[in-house]
């Protein structure tokens, strides 16, 4: 069975799958990393976003084979309840999530943005998150939390 060496949340992992087209999303969830959510399987909602070498990638569209040798970070890899990433801490402080199903993908997209641009404008934050859908209507809090995480007033 083909094996793929992928760095996941800082640890070297080997994914075995008979199907190299299997999307990363299912491999991650199979490893128990369930923060990354299935939303559409079509690359249109952002719920499954993960960081691949610092870029936000839709894991439902990324075949496992394409990740060989790359570094993947999921929401679990950003931080933990005891030691949260600044974005996670800001999202908690702003009480952002309602159902929370989109939150993982939103935080990942925001992390990718802050990686490229540490102090984005509000408009840049909104544009960067346009690929992430939220049905509960938490958008205003999301923007405020991303501003706060980047050291700007929300």
């Amino acid at each position, binding site marked *: 069975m083909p094996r793929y060496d992928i760095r996941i949340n800082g640890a070297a992992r080997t994914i075995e799958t008979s199907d190299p087209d299997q999307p990363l999303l299912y491999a991650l969830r199979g490893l128990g990393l369930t923060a990354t*959510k299935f939303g559409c399987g079509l690359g249109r909602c952002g719920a499954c976003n993960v960081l691949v070498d610092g870029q936000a990638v839709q894991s439902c569209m990324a075949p496992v084979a394409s990740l060989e040798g790359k570094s993947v970070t999921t*929401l679990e890899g950003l931080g933990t309840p005891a030691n949260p990433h600044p974005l996670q801490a800001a999202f908690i402080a702003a009480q952002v999530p309602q159902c929370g199903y989109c939150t*993982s993908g939103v935080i990942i997209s925001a992390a990718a943005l802050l990686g490229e641009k540490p102090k984005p404008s509000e408009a840049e934050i909104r544009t960067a998150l346009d690929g992430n859908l939220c049905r509960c209507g938490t958008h205003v809090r999301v923007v405020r939390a991303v501003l706060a995480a980047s050291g700007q007033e929300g």
Partner: protein
Amino acid sequence: MTTSPDAPRLSRRTLLEGGALMVGFALGDALAPVGALAQGAARSAAAAAATRILDPKEVDAYLAINGDGTVTVWCGKVDLGQGLRVAIPQIAADELGIGLDRITYVEGDTALTPDQGRTAGSYGIARGGMQIRQAAATARKALVERAAHRLGVPADELVAADGAVRPRTGGAGLTFAELIGGARFDLKLDPKAPLKDPESYTLVGKPLPRPDVPAKCTGTLTYMHDHTVPGMLHARVIRPASVGAHLVSVDESSVADLPGVRVVRIQDFLAVVAADEWTAIKAAGALKAQWSAGSGLPAQAELPALLRASPGTTEQVLTTKSSTDAAPPPEDARSLTATYFWPMQSHASIGPSCAIADVSAAGATIWTASQGTHGNQATFARFLGLPKDKVRLIYLDGAGCYGMNSHEDAAADAAVLSRAVGAPVRVQWSRQDELGWDPKGPPQLIDIAGTIDAAGYIRDWRTDMWIPENTRGLPSIPLLAPEAAGLPQTPGLNSGMISQNGDPPYRTGRMQVVAHWLKTAPLRPAPLRSPGKPANCFAVESFLDELAAAAVLDPLQLRLSGLTDQRGKAVVEKIAEMMSWEQRPSPGPNSDQPVGRGRGLAYIHYKHDEAHVAIGMEVAVERASGAIRVERVFCAHDCGQIVNPDGVRAQVEGSIIQTLSRVLKEEVTFDRERVTSVDWSSYSLLTFSEVPKLDIALIDRPTEPPLGAGEAACAPVAAALANAVFDATGARLRTVPFTPERVKAALGGQASMPRT
């Protein structure tokens, strides 16, 4: 914004025990890990399932004082992200007289929690919370009476606080654990048990953080989609190619090369089951099946006319008021008629529905994100052929649901499949299934006729609404799996209370509201957040502005002059203040500009006796493109006593943004065979760049009953927006969604009315 400096910080201690979600609270670091206390309490609660009192008339159904002095609260309502997990413990802890850190909270499990009805209709706090407040008040009264007996002190000289009953004047008391710890109250809820003076509340009214938020932000919350059961198989259900189609044949050899795939066919119910999810997905894609022609859908463009002409419709006068004024209307009176249309819409949950079922001849356990665990017990028992008490439904968090999406359908799929294959089965719907087959918010067609005189008095008003009827006594909305598999269930329609708020909340002369109940609906309907009210308020509050424009009156002043309810007046006056409302009629002075800017408002007294909400909007409309830019939304919101202000604020924010999405973009599309809006391109939602600034004023009335905050702010959104567009352009929008094409048509002088 979220926490007042003096509010205790809560840590999350949520865990799954026996499948049921337990939440504990601890003072200190908001990010502390799960505590041992909650784990112990969870174990004891799960073990107690066999002996739980579930009668909603009994105090013991809702709360217990444990031997260690902690309190367990059981709630039949579930937390969908709206914050009941903190708000209900706030209510219970305050009323009982104990710290929030001593409470363990259990929700939505038919084996553990009392049936408090579906979590719907904004009744989580207003009904569910008030039952628990009364249970706590009854328990406190009993604890005080026991203490009075044992201390030899009159009950009225004692006070329950901090988990103990003590003399008001100080001195030794008895802890709750000493008074009853571990034993039952054996008491009925006493409606006369006195409630505490709201001024004495120390938790109610505080913006305490929701305990599940840290887990949701770090990926440690177990959602329905993340839950696993030992030995669980993964399934995908294959829906018919067309609505109403029957399964003709299945070619099982088409999936023979996929390892371990089993095809399950029960009449028209077709599924593939596999050991892992990705194999199930591939099998669902590869399986070849032949379907008959469908039962057919109407032509979408003809839908409004078809509603009006629907055969077998029954009429019901919902409200009627005669006028004592027999005189003919004065010369200056203006009479108008208008037709408004609201399309079918989807819940459009971000995660397609998912469920797990473990069914055997002995019983069934079903893990579901359903808003109605208890209500579904009888439904599932019936089609599974099991006694009701052998069917246990356990709630787990799902992707947001706002009425009834496909959570129950996924659970029924899993139950039918688990019984068929003899193992626990997890069913995960696809995006296309979710948008194609979730039960839909129904279409609504509304006519209004009215007369206004020059002074702004509405001399007469008549609303006619064409809406699917609610089948009387329907236990639950018919589910897809039993329907396809030929299993017993009660047929019928349920769209929620969609006929409310069809009357103007203002002083009028003659007034009548008539419902024309339709016997069928083009697609299976279900309640969708604020059922019916966004459309009814859209029609009523748009028409009020149309009357105001006809009489050349300021629309806000017209509302104030017609409002008799002081709390209603207060929210409208608050909007005037927030928007620095300039008194003038609409349309506004720049309505002929290439980009017209305008303002509008709408008001509702939700369901006639619940929250008062006024919403104002500032918009820019580009005439060339027809694009509406909502720049700012203002909301004044009075839902009575506010239990958790940040929770209410989050609900109001969500109600406004979600409804703006529905009004600007959303419409289920279909051809003559099937729904065609099955992905995020064909059914698009509001994006981050399109979300306006929100300015929300919460009016707290601590001594009034809490009225619910989950959906009232949805209702005025469409009318406030339509009225603002009219103010900006002079064009009147009467059909949702307000697409650029519709705006351009309205600007071009074509009335934005459905074909009827």
